[in-house]
């Protein structure tokens, strides 16, 4: 029998001056035993695919240029698990979203992903919109979402007491849900790793050799050569650049920015469900979205940028003000709620249509997956299933179930903010660090931070700890805890404090790792 430990995949980080030891032998080893599949891009789709492939007896590598999984497109979204009620019926997107929405409740439980079926309410705010509700209902039923309910104005206000007095009625979508987007990507990757998938982070693919041969070679920025039989390009906004390396066919992508406002936790009690306006010809409108973390979001905007634009992830005052006025049409008192932050999600928009998937793209054994827009978070499990089938049918990937593979994470994986460690009897007596609160906005303890530093993907950056623990994500935005967390990372992982980064090289906490404060007084 293969023990749990030996079946684990290798976790490799390509830090500029601290490369994982396993990286040294990687080129040689993969030359002798090429990977069956190399997944380029560790966003939610790449990680979900690694998770699904890890159920089979395959040699799989998941790699990304960033220093954590889910560090690009997958970290900024509305975190809605859609039922697909308003998708265009008959598309692959609608089919996958509908399928995934039924898998989510059980999957969230297995993977220990915080998940809540909060429901959604589409509101008609004038008489004309009231008629539109019927069309939306018909569309929902066409999409297989049959449990939607028309509500009178009074019934809508009974469910949500803070919506405007003048609403003309609503449509309730009971199964529309919210989940923790960060934990989702991490959970997929952790289970994949446990099942033997190798993960390489901090490694950008700059060159592909022998793309036309049965065994292809990915060459990273550090000149590591990775031999693989199949390449899956799920590099999100980097997918065009990667496709050019293997001569992939024509598709055009660009970043589409969606800005969101984040409201403080006290606002969450005011709105329980996702509130949606009736979409118009020009816009889908501004949504109000409760988050699993207990905040409210207002957003998103939709602003298209050029592929090489540098300021895509910015936020802008004008847009944020228009979000606030849009959101106040659904919940007027939102203007009085404190805003604690703003963020931009960047979706990958494809001119040739969303969910652009092409098998044997330019070369045999290459799968291009791009244009996965915001619904990709919801659809990731069913999309990954679909991709596995495509690989099997069109790229001759042999699928043999691995009887030892697991499909869930251990009970201890629940994030601390979801299952409070301090409410567990005796835990603090045993490990006092769980009683040392570091993030005072979200009440996150030193124990939780250390536990996540030791978690399977061994995160080392401030942002990766933020996404796992919620520390620094509260109203003070790190005023109290950011430096303390940097100190904990430094101490726990034996990294000099001045080399701790926010999200990898180039984002160190000090401008120059060598400078120590001058002690003499000047003139």
């Amino acid at each position: 029998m293969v023990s749990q430990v030996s079946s684990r995949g290798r976790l490799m980080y390509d830090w500029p001056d601290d490369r994982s030891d396993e990286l040294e032998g990687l080129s040689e080893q993969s030359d002798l035993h090429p990977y069956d599949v190399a997944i380029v891009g560790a966003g939610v789709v790449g990680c979900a695919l690694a998770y699904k492939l890890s159920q089979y007896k395959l040699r799989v590598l998941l790699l990304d240029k960033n220093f954590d999984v889910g560090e690009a497109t997958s970290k900024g979204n509305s975190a809605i698990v859609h039922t697909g009620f308003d998708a265009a019926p008959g598309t692959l997107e609608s089919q996958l979203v509908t399928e995934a929405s039924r898998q989510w409740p059980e999957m969230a439980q297995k993977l220990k992903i915080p998940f809540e079926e909060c429901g959604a309410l589409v509101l008609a705010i004038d008489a004309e919109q009231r008629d539109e509700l019927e069309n939306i209902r018909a569309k929902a039923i066409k999409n297989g979402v049959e449990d939607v309910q028309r509500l009178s104005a009074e019934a809508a206000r009974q469910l949500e007491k803070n919506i405007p007095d003048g609403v003309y009625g609503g449509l309730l979508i009971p199964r529309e849900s919210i989940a923790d987007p960060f934990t989702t990507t991490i959970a997929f990757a952790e289970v994949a790793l446990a099942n033997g998938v190798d993960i390489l982070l901090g490694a950008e693919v700059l060159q592909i050799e022998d793309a036309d041969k049965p065994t292809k070679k990915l060459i990273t920025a550090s000149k590591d050569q990775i031999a693989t039989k199949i390449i899956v390009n799920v590099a999100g906004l980097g997918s065009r650049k990667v496709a050019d390396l293997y001569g992939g066919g024509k598709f055009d992508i660009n970043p589409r920015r969606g800005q969101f406002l984040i409201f403080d936790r006290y606002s969450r009690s005011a709105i329980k469900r996702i509130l949606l306006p009736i979409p118009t010809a020009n816009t889908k409108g501004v949504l109000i979205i409760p988050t699993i973390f207990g905040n409210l979001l207002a957003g998103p905007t939709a602003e298209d940028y050029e592929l090489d634009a540098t300021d895509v992830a910015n936020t802008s005052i004008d847009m944020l003000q228009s979000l606030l006025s849009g959101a106040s049409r659904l919940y007027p008192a939102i203007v009085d709620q404190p805003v604690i932050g703003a963020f931009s999600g960047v979706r990958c928009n494809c001119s040739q249509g969303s969910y652009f998937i092409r098998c044997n793209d330019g070369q045999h054994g290459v799968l291009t997956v791009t244009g996965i827009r915001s619904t990709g978070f919801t659809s990731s499990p069913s999309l990954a299933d679909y991709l596995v089938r495509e690989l099997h049918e069109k790229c001759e990937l042999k699928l043999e179930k691995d009887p030892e593979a697991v499909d869930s994470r251990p009970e201890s994986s629940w994030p601390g903010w979801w299952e409070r460690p301090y409410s567990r009897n005796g835990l603090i007596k045993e490990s006092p660090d769980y009683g040392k609160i570091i993030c005072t906005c979200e009440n996150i303890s030193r124990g939780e931070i250390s536990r996540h530093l030791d978690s399977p993907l061994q995160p080392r950056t401030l942002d990766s700890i933020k996404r796992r623990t919620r520390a620094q994500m509260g109203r003070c935005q790190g005023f109290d805890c950011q430096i303390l967390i940097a100190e904990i990372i430094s101490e726990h992982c034996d990294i000099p404090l001045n080399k701790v980064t926010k999200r990898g090289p180039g984002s160190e906490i000090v401008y120059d790792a060598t400078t120590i404060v001058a002690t003499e007084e000047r003139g």
Partner: protein
Amino acid sequence: MSSTTHFQVVVVGAGPAGIGAAIALSKRGINSTAIVERNDQIGGIPALYKKKKGGVRTFVRWSRGGIPVFGEEYAKWLGSRLAKTKTRVFLQSQVIEIDAKERKLVLVNPDEGQMTLTADAVVLACGAREESIAERGWLMGSRPMRVYFTKQLLQLVDGNGLLPMRNPVIIGSDLIAYAAAAKLKVAGSENAVMVDNRPNPECSIFERLYFRRWSNPTFRGLTSKSVEVVGSGSASGIKFSESGEIFPCDGIMVCGELVPNSELALMGDLKVDLSTRKPILGKGFQMSESGWFAAGNILGGFHGAEWCYFNGQYVARSVIKYLSQSG
């Protein structure tokens, strides 16, 4: 199971205001007082301004002709006064739950795990923090590393001996901002470019002249309606949106503009003005629920350590009056 302990008065926060209140309560015969502090030391923000050769003395005290001292010295003085009282101090203790009607607080700390305190009166002396970029409303852009609050600067420079930036841009222009500019210059950085959404610095000319001894920041009043943070990995500049003008930098300080730490008040459904985050007060610094008081920088505005200390003492008198009337 968590234990419950009763005190006549529980003070939340061991900064100047909380300590001032505890000392005054003790002087006036209240023997059972507890201070709950989330940090591992008392003294609040002043304690972070370390006494060092080449350090910058800041305006902690005003009473003796406004002689600037090191915050750490003042915090030590507070500590020695507090040690002479019988006040019970709970360090590293975070309040996670409040029942305002019952005057009950649930804490978490490493020694006891969860514990419950009840009291006849509670004083919230939780201080304030600096407004985040999003809260200021005129700063947008990217979210890179090396955008720091003053507290973080103190933790890096005084706490760890690290210089976070060489060419700083400072957002804000009050005393805290000028003190930060001086602190950075002394630690080895260049003179800062200071940006604020007002035509002239918030600091008085007298205060600016005082800090001139250490540093001479260039002030840039806001000429356009907003500025943007520039930088992908780390902060690399600040851009005036309308003119497009960019000031390059390798780090940004976000200083001053204090927001009251009124989270516990909100948690207990005590009335708070949501736009300013100030607790809504009645006579004698009483909050909206009977037996709850507020003292120090949680009241709003920017007050020096000594002001907070005296305010804490003043609020203690009001607490004693309340206790004698209700008891």
